[in-house]
Structures are given as structure tokens and as C-alpha cells.
């Protein structure tokens, strides 16, 4: 990647902003699963959870949802935490997600369009960037 000029940076930002809000094709078309992978999440088993999601989605033949990692959400009491945002369902945060729960989320939530009981937690606050909080 060559060095950016001011225009490049602005163009890149607009492109990526669009890409993050509306994924139109391929992986991530229907939604995104975001796994908290700070030290805390990893210590609680997030890496195994990541693999479990990949494996179970493979088995279920789901290819329009992408999986990504992020930092710590702050819900340390319920690590590992996973956020599931799909087009046709409310966006939710799941906590205490072990590998078995990850597979349940794929089967029930991603494939079956139902929420997974006992693991839902609340997002800690509104997003000041997305909401343009002023």
C-alpha cells in the first residue's frame, strides 16, 4: 500500500464506512459475528469459540455471515462475549459463550432465526461515533 494523501484518506474512510454498514455480497452479506478477543476473552476461551463458529457454520452451510474479532467489551464477568448482528434479527450480545454455546448460536440464531436463551447480555452503552452523539 502506498502512502496516503489527504484525498486518499478521505476516500478510504468513505469506502470503508459504507463497507462496514452495508455489506452487499459474499461473506457478511447477511450479518456479522464479532468475537471479543482481548487478553480476557482469549483467556476465557475465545479462540476455541472462534473455531467452533467456523466449524459449525461450515457444517450448516452458512456462507453469508462473516466472523471477526475485536477487543474487550468490558463485560468481564461473562467472557467470552460475542456480538451477533444480522439483518433480519435484533442485534444482541451473548456472554459466557463456550464452544457448545457457539454451536447453539449458529444452529438456533444464524440458521433458525431464534435467540439463544440464558446467554444474552446488554450492550454497555450507545455508540458515540455511529450515533453521531453531539
Amino acid at each position, binding site marked *: 500500500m502506498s502512502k496516503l494523501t*489527504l484525498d486518499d484518506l478521505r476516500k478510504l474512510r468513505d469506502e470503508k464506512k459504507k463497507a462496514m454498514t452495508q455489506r452487499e455480497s459474499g461473506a457478511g452479506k447477511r450479518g456479522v459475528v464479532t468475537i471479543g478477543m482481548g487478553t480476557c476473552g482469549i483467556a476465557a476461551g475465545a479462540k476455541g469459540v472462534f473455531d467452533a463458529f467456523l466449524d459449525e457454520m461450515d457444517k450448516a452451510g452458512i456462507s453469508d455471515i462473516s466472523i471477526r474479532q*475485536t477487543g474487550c467489551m468490558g463485560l468481564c464477568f461473562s467472557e467470552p462475549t460475542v456480538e451477533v448482528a444480522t439483518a433480519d434479527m435484533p442485534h444482541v450480545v451473548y456472554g459466557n459463550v463456550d464452544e457448545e454455546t457457539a454451536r447453539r448460536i449458529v444452529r438456533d440464531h444464524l440458521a433458525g432465526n431464534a435467540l439463544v*436463551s440464558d446467554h444474552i*447480555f446488554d450492550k454497555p*452503552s*450507545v455508540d*458515540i461515533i455511529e450515533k453521531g452523539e453531539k
Partner: protein
Amino acid sequence: MAYKNYILVCAGTACESNKGKALYEALGKEIASAGIDTEVQLVKTGCFGFCGEGPIVKILPDESFYVKVGPKDAKEIINEHIIKGRKVERLLYKEPGAETASEDIGFYHKQFRIVLRNCAVINPEIIDEYIARDGYGALEKALFDMTPDDVLQEIKDSGLRGRGGAGFPTGTKWGFSKAVKADQKYIVCNADEGDPGAYMDRSVLEGDPHSVLEAMAIAGYTIGADKGFIYIRAEYPLAIDRLNLAIKQAKEYGLLGEKILGTDFSFDIELRLGAGAFVCGEETALLASIEGKRGMPVPRPPFPAVKGLWGKPTVINNVETWANIPVILLKGSKWFSSIGTATSKGTKVFALTGKINNTGLIEVPMGTTLREIIYDIGGGIDSGKPFKAAQTGGPSGGCITPDFLDTPIDYESLQAIGSMMGSGGMIVMDEDDCMIDVTKFYLEFTVDESCGKCAPCRIGGRTCYNILDRISKGQGEMEDLQKLKDLALAMRKASLCGLGQTAPNPVMSTMKYFEEEYLAHINDKKCPAGKCKNLLTYTINDKCVGCTACARVCPVNCIEGEVKKLHVINQATCIKCGQCFTTCKFAAIDRV
């Protein structure tokens, strides 16, 4: 097939014990009898944090937030809200004092995330995602639309104060460095987070490393520095990996390095790894360590802002302070200074730990009360026992007692009650925690971590620890209290750096608020919390049914007795581990 509505019922311990279970069942029954179970999904959730208002029901997708919902309300929620689409006004959460429920979703959140804005949102290993969320937009604004003086004024106007603990105004600090003429200046990020129980900085670096890089570049532009260092402890391997990756990506994009975005401004950042000495979080010791010397503090002034790294002006700020900078430039100082209290602007991140249900990393506006943090966000005390104290500021801080639960938290208010903001560790304690034990723990830490350069800290700390140790063993005397006070005062006044000056704070604070506990240890030779082993005696009373559970669990086999007969503890060999006490199901073991 997708459901139209989702009814989330909190199944946290607090809500469950408050008829939450019956509510869940009642809602299930109503859904079934209305015949809408293909349209509505009833879901149990983890704790929402708002335990004082429980049981809590949230309805998706419209995000209605019902509080204090009883089983008898189930019918109304189903009939009105789900079937007819009319919210049940009387159950909606209203902010204290407000007549009607707020329309704004997320209104019930007590948290406000500025520093943690990108944590758990972006992938920290992909620079594009940071850029998509206005990342490097503040640097762009500074380089193209603002002079260094403009940036400095904006930071000053924002009222941002150092988040490392001391709360020094950031703009003023930058101003000192900017005013000095020098051929070379430096920017340093203090990521040597060492307070027991604190991990705010680690989470920011792991979750949003670019925000710190961007902020350091902005400071470089402001004061005229082209070189930055991040001093991070080697115990944070993931944060180090992600920082290295972030620096690499930023350089590839030309957002760090020579001629940033085609301007004449150049700025480069390198990492320096700390070997785990707590004192290296003190700024002069940190700078010595970067220079390759032994990490020991030197007297101030001159302050690093004027004469720092290799004798050059150096702005040194903590991770959390840096993470605020881009947002201040993007949203403006006016926006930032509208958050918080009169003297403390913005938010503070706390690492909430201890005897609390929802341990975690939280960010709240300055001026939030301890009660809101513990009960609305933290979900209350996990043991169900009364709240005793919250320790803030780590080894440099003190305790906040129940009397101050409603004090708005900011730099001044905490100092006034003998604690301090500190870097943001907050440990919640209940009545099972012995304050002498806790104080001893912190003092042991500072004695261990004292660099030994100045006598007040090296000798004073050790002597204080010895006295506390005696008290905890029942060998304390009344004069010890005065001795502790004298030593604390001497350490405060004569120690070279913040470590020694603040090391007696836990002692002073607990002696002030928990004097009766000190007296109980000294005069009655008792530990009211049942923590100090030397002061405890375990005996078996006549409630004993002879189940032998205690004898089996005793690690030193000091409990004797036959089945179905009263057991006896041999006091000479008992190590006071308390295992029998927690094992006994018949309350047959007395701990005094």
C-alpha cells in the same frame, strides 16, 4: 421463519430472586394462551445490571425497557404491547425525576464510552476499520485545519486532566513543552499499568491501538516533536503485538513516519518494554528506564515537560488520556467539557472488581456516584452481604465507605474523602473483608515495589508494614496507631516520588473510617471480618450431628470424633484455614 418480537427476561440472580422466575413462567403462559408462540420468542438473559429496578423485561426490536415487572404484569405486556403494539407506560423505566420515559434508546445506560468507543466495535488488527470510524480524522483536522496553537487551545478548553491518577491538566502540560525552545522534543505514552486489579490501559491498547498512536502524533504536531515512545510492560504481550502491527500499518499508510499525508510534519513511534517494576509508572523513573538506566525517580522540578527524556522537553501522558484526544478534536472541546463535573471533564474508565456481580471494564461520566456504579452497572454485591467499602486508586488510594455512596465521583471529591481517582482500579468489598488485611496487602505491594532510593519510602514503608503485621497477629498496642500516623505523615512529606508519598494512603484512609476495626484487633484481639488467621478460633458447638464432613475436609486432620457424635477441633494443630467452617451444613462450627 422469524419472530416478530423477542421478550427478554433478566435471569440474573437479583432478578431471579425477585420473582423473576414466576414472571418468566407467567409470560410463557400468556404467550401460549394468546396463541402467538410462533410470533414471539421468550428468552432468558444474563444480568442487565439494573438490579435495583428488577425484575427487568426488555422487548426487541423496539428496545422497550420495563422495570419492576411482576408476574401479574405479564398479561398486560402480552395483550397491550405484543398484540396491540401499545407500550405499557407505567412499567417503562423513567429516569429519576422524569415524568415520562425517555424516547432515546439506551437512555438507561449509565455508561458513556469515549475512551472505549472503538473497543469491541472494530477489529484492532485492521487499520481500515479504525479509519472507517473517523480514525485519523482528528490528525487530519489538526494538520490541515488547525495551527499547533489552535490544537493546544482546544485541549486546554476541553478541561481534560491526566487519567493516570494525579489529574494534572493535559493542556497545561503540553503548553509547558510547547513553550520551551529545543532542537528535539519527545512524546511518551505511559502504558506501564501496574496497580493490582487495574487493566483499563491494556484493554484500550488491545482494542483500539490506533487511537493512542493518532493522539501521540497530534501532540507531536502541537509541541513540535517528531519522535514518540510507548513504554509498555512486557507482561502485556497481546497489547504489544497489536501496537506493533498498528504502527506498521500506520507507517504503510503514511499516517506515521516522514511527511505525514504529504505535509511537512513527520512523526515516528517506537515501543519500549518495561520489565515489570511498578515504580517505572512514575514518570521520571519511566524516562530513566527508556534511556536505558535503572528505573529510579529523580526529584521534580524540573518537570519532564521542560526537561525530560535525554534532557529534552517531553510530554508524557497515560494511555487513557491519549485515547481521549482524537475525540476532543473531532467533536470539539465544548462537547467534551459538557460531560462531567465542574472541575473534572469527560469520562473515567474503571476496572470494577471484587465482591460484585458484574465485574468488568466500565466507562462513566465524571460525577457518576459510587451507588450507580455498584448497583446500576455492577449489579450489586455478589455475596448479598452489605457493602463495606470500595477501594480506589490502588496502592496509592483509599477507601470509599457506604456514607459516600452518593458522592459524585471526580478528582476533588475523592481526594476530599481521603481516596483518589488513581488510574481506575475499583475493588468492591463486603463485610467479610478485613480492612487491616487489605491495608497490609497494599503496603506489602508498595514495600516490594519501592526502588529504595529514598529513606522515607524504603524504611517508612517497611516499618508501617511491620506494625500492621503485628496488629493483624494480635500483638498490636495502642501506641502503634500513633506511630502509624507519624510514619505516614513523614512518608507523605519526605518521599521522593509519588510511590512513597502515596503509599501510606491506604493506612490513613482505613484508620480514619475503620478505627473500630483497628481497636478490635488491638484491644480485643479479634478480627471482626474473620480474616486474620492468628486471631481466630474455630470450635464445634452442640449443633454437631457427627456427620464427619469437617473431619474429612480438614487438611491437617486436626478434627476428631466418631460418626454421629460431637466432634472436637484440636486447637494446637489447627491451621485456621476455615475449610470446616465453610463445609459444615449445620452451623455447628463457631468462628470467633
